[in-house]
């Protein structure tokens, strides 16, 4: 019983951390309709900076604030490349991620160990093995703050960038400004996720950001089977994807089949949901 709980706890904890990236992808892909690939770079940037700042004895709270700003700068770069140099949105993201790989290597090297520094997970003594106690309220609070923000005037203008850019022009607003602002928000969030992940595992590795884009996108798609608005479905989607990865290992087959099984499980999840929605439509 205890051992199953440990596995589930791990799934939820990782899911909660990656749900921040899912929120970021939701803001870019669904609100401003800009497929932003720079999240992979900013996740690593957040991690690298966290490792560097903590080993230089900065407190974690100040470090998190600085990292969010640094991530926003990465988003600013993507946004400027797209709006000022007129680069295609995918290319802007790829360029920024590529550049950040080198920058992250320069910041923290390929591997940096935190070595017992005080982190976010030390604020309540004795919960070091129950990180969920800290993560769950923190991530929920973050979700509410962003949900609230998206309902402010600025949030509605973000939505207009994706739905009806002409409306912004009619209002006398610059659509580019809001695109950049949304990208800054999204990348700041992803950097935050990277910084929390590094504190969670206790070390930075340049490879930890590889595949984060797929994790975030898959989390987003899975979450949309529960609801299309910004809300708890994003957390559920991210956790579900981690559960799928964990389930793959539970089957304990020849490891070469793992990715195929992960893919099949995703198909089953989405197909099940689609199937049931066909059913409800027929009833109504």
């Amino acid at each position, binding site marked *: 019983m*205890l*051992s*199953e709980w*440990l*596995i589930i706890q*791990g*799934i939820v904890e*990782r899911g909660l951390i990656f749900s921040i990236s899912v929120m970021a992808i939701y803001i870019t892909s669904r609100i401003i309709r800009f497929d932003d690939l720079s999240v992979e770079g900013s996740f690593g940037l957040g991690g690298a900076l966290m490792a560097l700042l903590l080993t230089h004895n900065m407190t974690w709270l100040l470090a998190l604030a600085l990292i969010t700003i640094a991530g926003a700068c990465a988003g600013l770069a993507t946004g400027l490349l797209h709006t000022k140099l007129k680069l295609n949105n995918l290319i802007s993201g790829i360029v920024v991620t590529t550049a950040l*790989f080198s920058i992250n*290597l320069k910041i923290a*090297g*390929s*591997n940096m*160990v935190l*070595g017992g520094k005080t982190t976010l997970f030390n604020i309540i003594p004795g919960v070091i093995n129950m990180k969920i106690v800290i993560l769950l309220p923190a991530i929920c609070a973050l979700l509410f703050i962003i949900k609230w923000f998206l309902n402010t005037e600025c949030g509605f203008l973000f939505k207009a960038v994706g739905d009806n850019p002409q409306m912004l022009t009619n209002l006398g607003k610059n659509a580019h400004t809001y695109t950049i602002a949304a990208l800054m928000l999204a990348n700041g969030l992803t950097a935050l996720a990277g910084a929390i992940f590094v504190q969670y*595992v*206790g*070390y930075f*590795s*340049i*490879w*930890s950001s*590889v*595949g*984060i884009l797929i*994790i975030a996108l898959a989390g987003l798609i899975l979450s949309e089977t529960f609801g299309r608005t910004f809300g708890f479905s994003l957390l559920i989607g991210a956790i579900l994807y*981690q559960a799928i*990865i*964990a389930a793959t*290992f*539970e*089957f*304990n*087959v020849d*490891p*070469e089949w*793992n*990715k195929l*099984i992960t893919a*099949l*499980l995703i*198909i*089953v999840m989405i*197909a*099940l949901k*689609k*199937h049931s929605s*066909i059913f409800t439509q027929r009833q109504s």
Partner: protein
Amino acid sequence: MKNKNIVISILIISAIVVAIIINKNRQKNDNSSAIIIGILQTASHPALDAAREGFVDTITKNSNGTINCIVYNAEGSMINAHAIAQRLHADDSIKAIYAIATPALQAIASVEKTKPILIAAVSNPHDLGIIHEKTNICGTTDMIDIPGTIKSIKTILPYVATIALIYNPSESNSVAQITIMDKELRRHSITPLHVGITTEIEVPQAIASALSKADALLAPTDNLVASAMPIISHLAHQAQKPLIASHNDAVKQGALMARGVDYYECGKATAGIALQVLCNGKKPYNLPIAPAKSDTIMINKQLSDELGITIAKISDTIMYINSNK
């Protein structure tokens, strides 16, 4: 409804696959009295596979079926490695963990503080901040004898003036070795030329450029280089320039020579330590982390003949092997 049929057929196929898998899984776990070792492998490539096979073969041979191994492979993803690590930590039937390569070790060491962790293919475990007085980690490292390697290059290839160092700057084990290689090369008045590659796609361009500038190529025990060894050796062969690797399998894949680590032997050595811990009740912190043996020079016979290299008499043991083509 066409859509519905597709969905149902997908579901049926998946259900069958899952049923087969679960069934297979049950058969595997029948022998419930056995000790189970969970293996966490960082990625699939010949060197790490050899480290796994050496371990599993030795354990099977010496334990009379009392120890079983379950293999998990993170396929290069840190996040997968963590998911597996958590699983291994939580499973009470798993008594020990065998971590292959640094990322696997870091993932498991961050969650597992009590069960013994056996390691192989890790270059510098002491730099990871996880080895302490009461550590639960023991095994072997794959640190090569770099001064020895450079000395044998100097003897066997005396004409070499510039050597391109091929490595992935984002692998900490490689960076650690490259620092020493650079220093040793300069001491022997050979000019080192650093060639960093971070993805396999960059390999052909980077190697072509390196071959045009340097007299020979030298690679540390780098995971990316190990994966890309066939293409690297092919390009070096085309340019008729020697390629010196740091893992012995590379010689079979077309490197000229290696004075490195045999990963199968590493796995075997770690398995020996595992048996001491699991069967003889030794504590991991009483077993020092042993360096791998690397005193034999492997030389590819076909290639050395083709390049017209005469091997001078040296004190090290030389083994001639052929490419497996």
